[in-house]
């Protein structure tokens, strides 16, 4: 095939394209130079696409898996942070004398410049003062290191902080008023983490209201004039706390100019880069290790105040310092999904064609930015006219952070309820309306269509009755909602080596936060080299290896596995070249099959894998690869999107206000599924977090003190075994010919649509819209009562 830009000949190859069971086909497409031949669809592969037990499962079920909080080093000191007990104050003085006298205390470090969060554009607006201004309860002020955790805890409690109290507010509505106490004395900016969050720099800021971020397309006024039906509503969502099982923590050892940090992180490279910058070290002098991570969900990016404090304390003492947050610190200061209020208005013609969408949102990420409601309304459905205005509102509360599809569960809760209501107003089935308006192929339109069809059949959508059909107090309903998430890729690299003993090893800095990264890497390399996954050793979570991607935006599988396959392909070619000499054949005649090098058409001419590896030079052979751009990507806008459609069956007790989810059917796409066993598990996990968000979770702040009332795992209710419904997950194979593995992640899409699907089931059960989360008894009864008054 001729490349029109260069005139050079570009090789082409046969790719699998489309959705299995729908339009799966083979197509000739250009294959970029250096890329291995495309894999066929999963049905023709040996390892990839087959349910595969986690290669680290044994370590996890025997207690051998070492998490950061388990790291014990010789001479280890334990640390505890000193945190603020007031929501807004100048720190006048900090007296550490009592703390210093606690036996076993070795060092105290006080923070003298803010380590995280938004930065004032004009620092002089808050000049003077030795310590940063306190803006929320639980803000770190410093930390103590001692020979025992008990001594560190005790000493941290004995640090006396003199506050010059300032007025505060922990209520978004109050914070928006002109006379509200400002969280910042002037405009601020904050960069996003690798998982998202943050906000556009340079936006206007008035008092506590920062923004809006404006997005417009077409002319919404004209669009609403064209509309024959207009649906609108105001939707409110609560603050959700990540609540990872393992709290944030590090063990830092600063030794002779070299810093070694064990970190519970979603990005080893990010922690290294932060600490190298802050401590003025070359990156090669900072090594970050992450063997196992007890969950992250978006809150574990960067070194964090705890990482910096542990490093400072290690620098002062020369000892390794373990700083692992306690549960209260975790729930108050390490991140949350911001609370939001959005007004969404949609205009349509009688046939369902959308003519205008208008969105206005205010959200609060506490002292941080990043409280927007995403891009669902802007992008999911075809509509020529869109206007969005999203603003952050600062309050004196702990910072928000990226949380599994930042903004999108909030966005979808509103959008999918409005679409549901529009369908009813138009007298259309909600799936039929979506078939008409969900036609943007760049927004997973095709996958959505197949997902609606497959899911409706599996779920029994035809059982759906008119709203409020049950006569008794417990009413059942069915609802549906869709997810949308971009296909992100990030720079990613790894190396694959083969020793003369035949041991294959893959090495990357990437961390496995529970998503099964180790296992998909082993699968991909095993497939390429015709081995079994358990024959591949995976060494990850160490910045001594080539940089892996950070675990955010569902990018890791799609970013790293092509690099892993490409490196393995180079190793395979080297192996064939060596074997060719031995077998007296040309390398092109040989192939790797069934754990051996075999001549095509002559299976008798073969060399077992190990014997072929023994032909390598001393030291074996190592290939390094990095993620190349997606095949054929134009560089414009998105690389594509992932869909997902979820169907919910729920019951509502209109006397007690208790909502129960009975069953969820979820149909999702993630490119080529690599390990269906782990993927289905991860989707179910996203759904359960979504149910928990929809029904239970809510951060409660005391308006009179600014303290979080439920900074724990008992009063902050999270879904458990008793509330887990029947969940059925269907994974599509959706081939895009985008990379050498054509794989994508699933973490975020799984979590986006659940709350909206349950809300639509709530409406179908009761005939009443619930526009506020969580759907707990007080809110449910209030919504039912308000509807009864209308």
């Amino acid at each position, binding site marked *: 095939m001729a490349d029109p830009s260069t005139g050079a000949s570009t090789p082409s190859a046969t790719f699998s394209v489309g959705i299995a069971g729908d339009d799966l086909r083979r197509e000739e497409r250009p294959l970029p130079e250096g890329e291995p031949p495309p894999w066929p669809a999963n049905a023709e592969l040996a390892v990839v696409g087959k349910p595969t037990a986690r290669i680290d499962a044994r370590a996890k079920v025997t207690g051998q898996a070492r998490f950061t909080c388990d790291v014990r080093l010789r001479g280890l000191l334990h640390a505890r942070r000193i945190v603020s007990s007031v929501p807004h104050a100048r720190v006048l003085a900090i007296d550490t004398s009592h703390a210093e006298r606690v036996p076993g205390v070795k060092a105290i470090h006080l923070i003298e410049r803010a380590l995280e969060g938004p930065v004032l554009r004009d620092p002089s607006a808050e000049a003077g003062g030795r310590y940063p201004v306190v803006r929320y309860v639980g803000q770190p002020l410093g930390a103590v290191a001692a020979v025992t955790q008990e001594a560190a805890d005790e000493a941290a409690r004995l640090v006396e902080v003199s506050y010059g109290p300032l007025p505060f507010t922990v209520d978004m509505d109050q914070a928006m008023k002109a006379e509200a106490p400002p969280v910042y004395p002037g405009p601020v900016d904050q960069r996003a983490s690798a998982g998202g969050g943050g906000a556009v720099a340079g936006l206007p800021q008035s008092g506590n209201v920062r923004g809006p971020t404006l997005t417009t397309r077409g002319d919404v006024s004209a669009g609403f004039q064209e509309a024959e039906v207009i649906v609108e509503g105001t939707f409110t969502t609560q603050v959700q706390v990540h609540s990872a099982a393992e709290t944030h923590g590090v063990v830092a050892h600063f030794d002779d100019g070299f810093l070694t940090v064990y970190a519970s992180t979603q990005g080893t490279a990010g922690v290294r880069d932060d600490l190298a910058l802050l401590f003025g070290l070359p990156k090669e002098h900072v090594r970050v290790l992450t063997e196992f991570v007890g969950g992250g969900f978006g809150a574990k990016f960067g070194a964090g105040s705890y990482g910096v404090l542990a490093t400072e304390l290690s620098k002062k003492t020369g000892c390794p310092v373990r700083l692992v947050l306690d549960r209260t610190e975790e729930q108050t200061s390490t991140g949350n999904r911001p609370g939001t209020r959005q007004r969404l208005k949609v205009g349509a013609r009688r046939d369902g064609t959308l003519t205008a969408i208008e969105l206005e949102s205010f959200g609060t990420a506490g002292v941080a930015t990043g409280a927007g409601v995403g891009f669902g309304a802007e992008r999911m459905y075809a509509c020529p006219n869109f206007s969005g205005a999203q603003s952050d509102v600062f309050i004196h509360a702990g910072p928000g952070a990226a949380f599994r599809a930042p903004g999108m569960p909030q966005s979808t809760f509103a959008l999918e309820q409005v679409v549901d209501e529009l369908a009813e107003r138009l007298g259309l089935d909600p799936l039929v309306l979506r078939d008409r308006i969900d036609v943007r192929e760049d927004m997973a339109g095709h996958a959505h269509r197949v997902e609606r069809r497959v899911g409706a059949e599996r779920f029994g959508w035809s059982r759906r009755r008119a709203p409020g059909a049950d006569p008794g107090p417990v009413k059942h309903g069915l609802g549906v909602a869709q997810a949308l998430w971009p296909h992100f890729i990030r720079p990613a690299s790894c190396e694959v080596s083969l020793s003369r003993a035949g041991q294959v090893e893959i090495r990357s800095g990437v961390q496995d936060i529970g998503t099964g990264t180790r296992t998909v890497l082993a699968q991909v390399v095993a497939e390429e080299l015709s081995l079994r996954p358990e024959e591949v050793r995976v060494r990850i979570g160490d910045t001594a290896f080539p940089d892996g991607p950070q675990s955010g935006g569902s990018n890791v599988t799609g970013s790293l596995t092509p690099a892993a396959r490409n490196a393995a392909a180079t190793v395979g070619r080297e192996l064939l070249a060596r074997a060719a000499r031995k077998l007296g054949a040309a390398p092109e005649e040989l192939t790797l099959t069934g754990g051996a090098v075999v001549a095509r058409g002559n299976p008798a001419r073969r060399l077992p894998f190990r014997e072929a590896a023994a032909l390598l030079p001393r030291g074996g052979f190592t290939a390094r690869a990095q993620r190349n751009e997606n095949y054929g990507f134009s560089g414009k806008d998105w690389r594509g999107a992932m869909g997902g459609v979820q169907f919910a069956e729920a019951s509502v007790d209109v006397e007690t206000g208790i909502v129960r989810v009975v069953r969820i059917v979820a149909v999702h796409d993630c490119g080529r599924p690599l390990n269906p066993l782990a993927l289905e598990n*991860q989707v179910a996990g996203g759904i359960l977090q979504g149910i928990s968000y929809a029904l239970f979770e809510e951060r409660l702040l005391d308006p009179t003190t600014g303290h979080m009332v439920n900074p724990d795992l008992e009063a902050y209710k999270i879904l458990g075994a008793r509330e887990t419904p029947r969940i059925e997950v269907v994974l599509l194979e959706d081939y895009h010919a985008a990379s050498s593995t054509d794989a994508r992640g699933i973490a975020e899409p799984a979590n986006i649509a659940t709350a909206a699907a349950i809300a639509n089931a709530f409406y179908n059960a009761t005939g009443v819209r619930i526009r506020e989360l969580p759907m707990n008894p007080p809110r449910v009864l209030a919504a039912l009562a308000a509807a009864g008054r209308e």
Partner: protein
Amino acid sequence: MNRLEAEPTTKAPGDPEDERTAASTGSPFPGDPTFRTTRREFLAYSSAGVVAVSLPLSREQAAPPATPAARGPGSIEITLRVNGSHRRVTVNPADTLAHALRDHLSLTGTKIGCDRGACSACTVLLDGTPVSACMTFALDVGDREVTTIEGLAHGRALHRVQEAFVAADAMQCGFCTPGMIMSCVALLARTPHPTLEQVRAATSGNLCRCGTYPRIFAAVLSAGGSPLTSL
């Protein structure tokens, strides 16, 4: 500026002996208004006060328990029966079993998620009964046999619950997994063929933030003899 003088000590910092000496000293400012009672101190107090609660006497007036002899406030050497062997360990009266296992016996498979009995990541078995090790004093264990996640497998041979967790992929991050498995092992010991509702009840105190419950249910039912199916 905050660098403190290292205290003269003959032991390396972090040495368990050193730790216990330091921790047992407690607050030098018991009357200080900034001093707050910690959970462990509260536990210690309530434990000591059991007699007072059951009798119309104040704690000071209550007769000391007859046996065993009063111990503490300093560190005490005790013997714990852990995973089939006797382990000598020196603990403070306020040390929890979770602390003793993790920090004195290097059995870090027992996890601490909340340190107040809300998440069950620290579940171990005491004579076969699941308990939260973060809510159990090491001193209160007595001669009961402690089984931790490290004590389930026999060499390379995993316990059938562990095998089932691997096969069903009943884990994601793996942090809650040890405690979850201990709860399920206890269930199968008393109910060899549990129903789904019994599995739910047995795991209802174990928080899995990744949301792997459907796989856990499938794993335990399969370990109880039902075919492994996705729930």
